């Protein structure tokens, strides 16, 4: 294997894990964009999605495509449910209460999953096998599918936000909640919709995660969620292309740091880069400069 093909392989590795971070980061970004809430339960919604895939495929022997659909539907419903039960009653409460509630929901999901599914990891049969050999570089179908799906999701999401009526409502709510309500936009519906879309993305993320790693465990969402949060902040939280860029940057960074033999420093380097970016450009790579009126 030549150095060039080794570098290309590592870039593909980075893009693949980066795509998953990006998808999760999109969910973070959307929710933050609309109600300024860091939804820490987002990573754990992915975990639930992964278990749905597992049980659908092993206990009910459903075909992979049905399992995927079920996971996306389950995540969407769960996201909307969490929003209704945990966040809606706190809409007028201080933002700190919301943040703490989000952490509580995250713990509830993690520990509930340990209780219901058991603490050990579950092995999910892989449903995308094989790959192509291009010169020295072996490209697995899983990585191709992962990268394509996440880019497609971003395109669809951009279209949804920029071109549809609901998207317009979302942008309006994020700009000024009060004014949007006065203009006849249903606040509850718009916010629920945003949570549902973000969670659907988490569902897609969980399927891609399962394809890549083939294992579901109760705590899988916590580190994934944290990394995706870093990705969202790095790219500029609230910005859709920013979340994508942030995800890819972190995935690539991790792959390259590991490739040069600093694998145990991987997380350290990621968080160090975050600190540097925030020092230089506090709103992230594509973040909007918001001037607070005093």
């Amino acid at each position, binding site marked *: *294997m030549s150095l060039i093909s080794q570098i290309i392989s590592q870039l593909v*590795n980075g893009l693949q894990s980066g795509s998953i971070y990006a998808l999760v980061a999109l969910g973070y970004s959307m929710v933050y964009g609309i109600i300024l809430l860091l939804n820490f339960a987002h990573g754990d919604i992915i975990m639930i999605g992964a278990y749905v895939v597992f049980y659908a495929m092993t206990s009910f022997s459903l075909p992979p495509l049905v399992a995927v659909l079920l996971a996306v539907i389950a995540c969407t419903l769960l996201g909307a449910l969490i929003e209704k039960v945990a966040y809606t009653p706190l809409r007028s409460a201080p933002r700190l209460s919301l943040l703490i509630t989000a952490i509580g929901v995250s713990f509830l999901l993690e520990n509930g999953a340990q209780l219901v599914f058991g603490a050990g*990891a579950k092995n999910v*049969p892989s449903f995308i096998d094989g790959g192509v050999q291009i010169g020295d570089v072996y490209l*697995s179908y899983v990585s191709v599918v992962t990268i394509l799906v996440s880019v497609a999701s971003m395109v669809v999401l951009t279209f949804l936000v920029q071109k549809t009526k609901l998207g317009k409502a979302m942008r309006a709510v994020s700009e000024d909640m009060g004014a949007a309500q006065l203009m006849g936009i249903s606040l509850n519906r718009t916010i629920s919709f945003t949570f549902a879309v973000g969670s659907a993305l988490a569902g897609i993320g969980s399927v891609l995660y399962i394809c*890549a790693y083939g294992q579901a465990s109760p705590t899988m969402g916590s580190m994934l969620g944290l990394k995706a949060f870093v990705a969202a902040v790095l790219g500029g939280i609230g910005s859709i292309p920013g979340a994508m860029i942030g995800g890819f940057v972190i995935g690539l960074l991790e792959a390259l740091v590991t*490739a040069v033999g600093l*694998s*145990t420093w991987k997380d350290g380097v990621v968080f160090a880069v975050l600190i540097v970016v925030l020092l230089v450009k506090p709103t992230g790579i594509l973040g909007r400069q918001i001037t607070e009126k005093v």
Partner: protein
Amino acid sequence: MKKIVCFVLAAAMALSLAACGNGSEGNASGGDTIKVGIIANTSGDSSQYGIAVSQGAKLYIKQLNEEGGINGKQIEVVEYDDKGATADAVNAYERMKSDGVTAVIGAVLTNTTLAVADKTYEDNMPQVTASATAASVTVLDPTDPSSDIRTNVFRACFIDPFQGEKMAEYAQKLGATKCAVLYDSGNDYAKGVGDAFAAKCEELGIECTIEGYATGDKDFKAQLTNIKASGAEYIMCPNYLEDVGLIVTQARQQGITAGFLGGDGWSGVSAYASAEDLEGSYFCSGYALGSNAEFEEAYAAEYGEAPKQMFEALGYDAALLMCNAIKSAEEQGLEAGSDEYKQAVIDAMKATNGLEGVTGTFSFDDQNNPIKSASILQIQGGEEVFVENF
């Protein structure tokens, strides 16, 4: 009232003294039995290990007695439960010492074994543990290469680095010229086995690439790409099962066809990766179920259920080692329980050479760890199949 309390206390004290007296009367060791102590946690949290070891050891002693014992004397087992607690283990030892035992088999867990070893070392009492793997059981300070060793303490199981060396030798046997290790750098077990593997590879002239990862990592593609580029034919992966499953699956996704090797933590790995991905992987174990039908049938006949793991067999071998050493002390005509007798047992144990046990052929190295064969197993169609003792 006070007087009554005093009287009761005094009576209790007198009784307990009397009890002590009875105990030491049993110290008469010149009779026709040889007393051997067994300390095992037969109740409590990890009692499955203690029960397995104790039953294995007692099976050997029963068989030996049926064949006429040692030197015409029967072996009498004095067994106390330590409940997995260090204080109880020390009490159990003190009690069996006053019962007049001449050697101790046990304890089972590492912490209880260490507690007992501290005491037996003071008394120069021969001790063999079936299952405690920590280096500090036989060496006072494992971090100091010139540290004193506990000359009286032996073990029947192998220690962690030994597995790495065995698997490196096995890789050489499989014809490997390039190998790789991928381990969790934050896990003592994985690092101990992995580093020993790499060192042995170097010694054997096998090129070995070492890749590490942080505890909790789920993505190993970058390390695996490096390993693929190194051209490794075998990848040693001595990690916990969840990580092993992730690594093997991701390796196959990357088109890596190299074989995988593992340590004794691999037992049960089939639940964590698909059978095709694992096919042909080798790992070693202290004992492979199914590799010694004679022992397993005898065990099942005695206890009504077959051995479940390696601990029954290790308990059996611990008793075998101890009784074999006692045999040579008996042949010298020494008095059981005397200091010379204990020293003779220890010397004989140390000199053990090529003794056939259930889990392998035993000798001891200079740190009282066994040099013996490991059971090699291979994953075939999702099943763990015994290949050979190597």
